[in-house]
């Protein structure tokens, strides 16, 4: 599911069909993998509240449902407090590799509704696996560099890279016709040369 299609969705109590609030921002953990641990819900009776991801029973197209409205709680740790203050968001932030290359602005997240696990970070014209995430701060989102500066590292999946990153590798490899290639063509052409 895309975060942008979840944002603003109404949260409904599955027992009595009352609206409890709407989805505002995700609370994410970045620790080897990126996971949405909780949702910040706006407009509840008590103002913004934290809803643990596991407390959501259904992610419907127009509403998400909660079986137990007592799952709403106040923030308990720093990531939750930061999320509630609007800090440490991924979406809208510049994405920089750990070798100092700006990949663009994160525009969306794709995540698994059963676990909250993030799968892709969507950029303006590209997307990368959430597995590249190293950190989310107030200045930038940091992701792992492809490490091709020291020669392309086998096992580093080419599909994980942006088109701009693939183009840099193609330039190093002096690949003919690279400037007119699509991302898929670059992956194909480079895949054989590693």
């Amino acid at each position, binding site marked *: 599911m895309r975060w942008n299609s979840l944002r603003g969705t109404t949260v409904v109590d599955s027992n009595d069909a009352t609206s409890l609030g709407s989805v505002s921002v995700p609370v994410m953990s970045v620790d080897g993998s990126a996971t949405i641990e909780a949702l910040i819900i706006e407009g509840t009776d008590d103002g913004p509240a934290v809803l643990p991801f596991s407390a959501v029973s259904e992610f419907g197209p127009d509403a998400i449902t909660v079986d137990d409205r007592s799952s709403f709680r106040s923030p308990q740790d720093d990531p939750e407090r930061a999320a509630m203050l609007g800090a440490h968001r991924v979406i809208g932030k510049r994405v920089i590799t750990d070798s100092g290359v700006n990949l663009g602005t994160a525009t969306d997240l794709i995540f698994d509704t059963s676990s909250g696990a993030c799968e892709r970070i969507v950029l303006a014209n590209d997307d990368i696996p959430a597995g590249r995430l190293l950190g989310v701060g107030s200045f930038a989102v940091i992701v792992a560099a492809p490490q091709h*500066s020291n020669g392309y590292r086998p096992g580093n999946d080419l599909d994980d890279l942006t088109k701009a990153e693939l183009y840099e590798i193609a330039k190093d490899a002096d690949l003919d016709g690279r400037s007119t290639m699509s991302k898929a063509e670059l992956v194909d052409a480079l895949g054989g040369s590693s």
Partner: protein
Amino acid sequence: MTRLVRASSITGTPVVTLGGESDYEIKDVVLDRDRQRLIGFTLREPGFFGQPVKPTLPWDAVHGIGPDAVIVKTDEVFADSAGLDTVPADGSGDVLEGRALTDSGIDLGKILEVIISLGTPPKMVGLEVEASEALHADGAHLFIPVPEALPISNDQALLPDSVKDHATNDLAELNAARGTFDNETKGDN
């Protein structure tokens, strides 16, 4: 891709932790003449009128340098500025304006810039000089490769004679020139 840049072009680049926080940007490059290498950066507050700050960034603490950011592991690396305290604030100004000489005493020109390669880790790879007659390009700005241990003083840098043949006016070619030069150096030994 190993990108080569003038050290001065890093000025103003944000210093970002792996956690995505940024409190400083690069002010100047600092060269250590005794140990013949780049030892780090002085820092300033972000923005055009950013004030210099006390903390410095040791070269060893740099995780990666790219066109858009200098990456450090955590903000703890700023705490220890030992070794850089004694360096004058104008840092790289020391070597610039000095002369690039070869082992046999040929003057290759005035040093304009230190060239470093970006990446993890970054390295000092060359000098930009205002070429002397010895390079047959009087007054032109040329790039010359340098070995990793570069004898360098206030007034001059001392280079192997072979660099004379590898001067280039294309920054992108410096890497190739440096490769040749490294091989020759190995061959000599």
